[in-house]
């Protein structure tokens, strides 16, 4: 095991997959200089400018070209810089990548990974802070992955690159420096499997990505008052691990879903509704208010789910 950052772990996973499979290549803006966050630093030196491909600021063509390149047998890793910019490539992702295999009757596959850094980070304001994972989970054909630790960013990115489906891979910008133990030259992790971070019998809290740090703090606070929360990191939003979540909720009979994304229409609603339908348990969702993310810290904070909110929401379920 090696201690490394979430950012390093993703870079390492990509480098190993590129060494393993010559069909893997990456394309996106500024990749030759390491990418906007440094998550590709050094890769152009090792793999050359053809496989670490610097592109123009042409999101639609980056994604569309990746679709074409995937259809003829390569495995592109697309960097979208900020998930917000991927909205310039929605036709290419939703109408093309997600549909090609199906509408051509299985003649082709689109094994691409779209890396979309998400979330609030350093007062980035309304166009660089969004968490739109629920949109993609809604689209048949797409896989949606939201790693929250260095080990997951390593193992899940490897799995995403090996997956024959188009994968929307959402790294949280605020997690780049997060350090953790990663098994170098390790295995890919299975997609679609959640992880229980903390066991408890009083309620189940499901979350993913950056907000998990706040959820863990809230679980600690709850534990201090004698409430044992089971915390589940969903890790993959589609396909989501119904088995793990429902087994936990069946035990605790109370389910709280927490996400950084806007609560209305968020993926938390899908999980809560499923648990209510399947188990008849009490459910609650927590997410951002339906506001664009503001710039000034006290205004931006209006969109952040706080530890106090999580604790209060948990208490209403008890």
């Amino acid at each position: 095991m090696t201690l490394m950052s979430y950012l390093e772990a993703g870079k390492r996973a990509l480098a190993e997959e590129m060494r393993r499979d010559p069909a893997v290549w990456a394309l996106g803006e500024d990749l030759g200089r390491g990418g906007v966050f440094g998550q590709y630093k050094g890769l152009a030196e090792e793999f050359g400018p053809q496989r670490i491909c610097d592109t123009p600021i042409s999101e639609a063509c980056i994604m569309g070209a990746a679709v074409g390149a995937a259809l003829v047998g390569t495995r592109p890793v697309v960097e979208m810089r900020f998930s917000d910019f991927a909205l310039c490539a929605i036709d290419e992702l939703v109408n093309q990548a997600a549909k090609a295999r199906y509408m051509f009757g299985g003649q082709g596959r689109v094994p691409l990974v779209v890396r979309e850094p998400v979330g609030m980070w350093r007062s980035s304001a309304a166009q660089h802070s969004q968490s739109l994972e629920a949109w993609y989970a809604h689209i048949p054909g797409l896989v949606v992955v939201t790693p929250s630790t260095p080990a997951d960013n390593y193992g899940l990115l490897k799995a995403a690159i090996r997956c024959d489906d188009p994968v929307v891979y959402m790294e949280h910008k605020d997690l780049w420096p997060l350090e953790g133990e990663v098994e170098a030259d390790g295995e890919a992790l299975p997609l679609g499997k959640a992880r229980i971070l903390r066991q408890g019998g009083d309620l189940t809290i499901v979350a993913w990505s950056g907000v998990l740090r706040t959820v863990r703090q809230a679980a600690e606070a709850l534990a201090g008052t004698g409430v044992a929360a089971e915390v589940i990191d969903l890790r993959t939003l589609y396909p989501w691990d119904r088995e793990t979540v429902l087994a936990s909720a069946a035990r605790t009979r109370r389910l709280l879903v927490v996400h950084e994304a806007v609560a209305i229409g968020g993926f938390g609603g899908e999980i809560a509704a499923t648990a209510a339908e399947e188990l008849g348990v009490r459910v609650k969702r927590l997410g951002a208010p339906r506001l664009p993310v503001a710039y000034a810290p006290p205004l931006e904070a209006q969109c952040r789910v706080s530890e106090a909110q999580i604790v209060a929401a948990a208490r209403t379920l008890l």
Partner: protein
Amino acid sequence: MTRANIDVERLREHFRTMARIRAFEEAAEAGQKSGEIRGAVHLSVGQEAVASGICANLRRSDYLVSTHRGHGHTIAKGADVTAMMAELLGKAGGTCQGKGGSMHIADFSIGMLGANGVVGAGIPIAAGAAHAVKLRGGSEIVACFFGDGAVNRGPFLEGLNWARIYDLPILFICEDNGFAATTRTRSLTGGPGPAARAEALGIPARIVDGNAVEEVDAAAAERVTRIREGGGPQFILAQTYRLKGHTAHDPATYRPAAEVEEKQRRDPIELCRETLLLRGVPAAALAADEAAARVEIAAAVAAARAQPWGDESLAWRDVQDMGAPA
């Protein structure tokens, strides 16, 4: 190459290909009008010379990316017309198992990577296919068809720029039929037009009479040779005319009858026939070619009709591996 010196056998082959496309389109139109063919069908009647002239210069291993008006390109690239007609009829034996229909017709076995229901969306996909060919050091080229309406979409600019900066083996063919859906493209397009836009991005462009198949063929031959020799992306603007409406249901009353009559005199099949007659091919031989095309397509329609619908389970297949619907 002029009309006088094109190889007569090659021109006759074009005549046959165009006749097959025409017969297919007429059958598709009839099927749509009877309700047997559902969805939207966009006919390429009047534009057959572009498909035939370009695709005659492609190898089976070369790639083709098409548009919503893609039957002609697909036939000219060598697809099986029975499988194509079965696709239009939604049958399981269709090129896409009846899951795509006219707008998503594709045949990967001949490098045909798909028609597209979104105008201009094929351009980045074609660029990416060419990019992959270059990455793996392949010898294939990519032919990318799009219409005049597509040049006002962002992916046109992005895709052409992409092909230029990476120096990709791709032939762009702007099939200018005069109409963006049901509006004259000229009234909606700033500047001198598609060829100038390509040139502005550093891609050599050539304008041809898209109804004169020998001209399209000659231009394509020259451009394809350049691409195969490593000359990078090339552009052909083929000026043609859509003799039918935007869809098979569109009567296209937005244009004067006199204009359509005049354009019908420049029907690419008739122009080709005139040249072949001048070159000594008997009229009866050409009529026989057309009759053979109609017989072939009628047989394709009958065979496709006789095919069963796909099992309902087909609707659930080929969505994705991870989290496949159950």
